[in-house]
């Protein structure tokens, strides 16, 4: 049996996060047991931010250097990020029904999160249809939704609560075992995302060798049919 270090890290995280979130962390005084959804909802949203950061980094590098590997990295990160954004939205709705009293409302945080999911889908569509530089531009522009989502509860009045950990005052109004559960779960999500993105980028390379942009092929290569 072979063990890879990233695989071991992901497994340890996947084992530790539920223990922390379900057993170590206490229920919330106001929200009760439902509050535990936070240990999945918040890490999913943060990891979605990180995935868009990877899309941005790959896009910026791609605009400078033409490397097909960067196209694949951006696409893989966007696929994972779009899934995590959708997960954060669905879990937020499941939490919102008992705690807010509504499944959905067009408050600034919810609206901008839908925008971020839209930006991911636009990027993936451009990556599939055009690829290359156009996709890189779409990825860089789409990344702007990340500060928009984060700032939505700071700049505008919202139903969604202001940030607890990423707050501007650098003061964390959360009980230490709850914070620990949140951070362990976030580490697990980030490790899992990195692992999935790396594997997906590799499988994209195998699926379609070369860049999604038709690369100019110069040389004596002749189409297989003509060679016969």
């Amino acid at each position: 049996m072979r063990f890879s270090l990233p695989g071991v890290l992901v497994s340890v995280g996947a084992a530790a996060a539920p223990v922390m979130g379900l057993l170590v962390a206490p229920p919330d005084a106001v929200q009760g047991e439902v509050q535990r959804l936070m240990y999945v909802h918040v890490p999913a949203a943060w990891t979605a931010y990180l995935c868009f950061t990877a899309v941005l980094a790959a896009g910026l590098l791609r605009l400078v250097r033409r490397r097909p590997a960067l196209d694949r990295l951006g696409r893989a990160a966007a696929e994972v990020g779009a899934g995590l954004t959708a997960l954060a939205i669905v879990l937020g709705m499941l939490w919102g029904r008992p705690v807010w009293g509504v499944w959905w409302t067009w408050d600034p945080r919810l609206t901008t999160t839908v925008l971020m999911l839209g930006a991911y889908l636009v990027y993936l569509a451009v990556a599939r249809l055009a690829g290359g530089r156009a996709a890189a531009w779409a990825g860089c522009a789409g990344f702007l939704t990340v500060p928009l989502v984060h700032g939505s509860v700071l700049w505008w009045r919202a139903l969604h609560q202001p940030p607890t950990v990423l707050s501007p005052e650098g003061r964390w109004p959360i009980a230490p075992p709850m914070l620990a559960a949140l951070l362990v779960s976030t580490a697990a999500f980030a490790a899992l995302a990195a692992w999935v993105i790396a594997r997906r980028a590799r499988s994209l390379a195998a699926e379609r060798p070369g860049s999604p942009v038709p690369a100019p092929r110069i040389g004596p290569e002749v189409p297989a049919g003509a060679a016969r």
Partner: protein
Amino acid sequence: MKVGVKLLVASAALVAGGVVAYRALDDGLVYYRTPQELAASSQALPGRLRVGGLVVEGSVLAVPGGVAFTLTDGVSDLRVVHTGAVSPVFAAGQGAIVEGRLDGRVFRSDRLMVKHSNEYRPPPAAATIAPAAAPIAPAAVSRTRVGLTEWAISARDPLLRPGPVSLEVTNAGATAHDLIVTGGGVSAHTPVLAPGQSATLRLRAPRGALLTLVCGLGGHEPLGMRGTLRVAT
């Protein structure tokens, strides 16, 4: 260098677009209004609107098919009669946002949403009672209400009488705030108030002074938590 120029043009366009969107959201598409804005608005309000604030302790009353309560932003109060579903976590001392229409001085709501603070803590082992607001001395002091929300400080009266003054400070927001008053030799502050908490700040207002109000929690002042109070001459 062509890439650099393109990047510059594109980012300038995106920043401009962002600023326009920000302005639009900031002015026109306010997600909810405050009781003070409703009280102060002279122009006709749109038929259906949202109002948000803190549910005043002791104001909640069960009514047929719903609940009645008072919403405050720390400055103005609004009586709400809600008909419809009530979330089991709805309680006094927490934030709420209601949707409906204003009917005279009463707001008739048909959608009630509970606004949660950004604080997470385990249930208390033994019941701890939050310190009650200090009793207000019945002496002839001038008194005003100051509301702390995300992200504004609003006072009911902009002008104070010189001499001893009481500020009834309420955190009607969803995160912790405090109030620091300076100017004219005055330097006073409340403790950090958790969402829903209030405190009375007593100070001696010097004749003709301009008092500056800010929230001392990091980053809150630049977000808009500042204001002034003038003392009469």
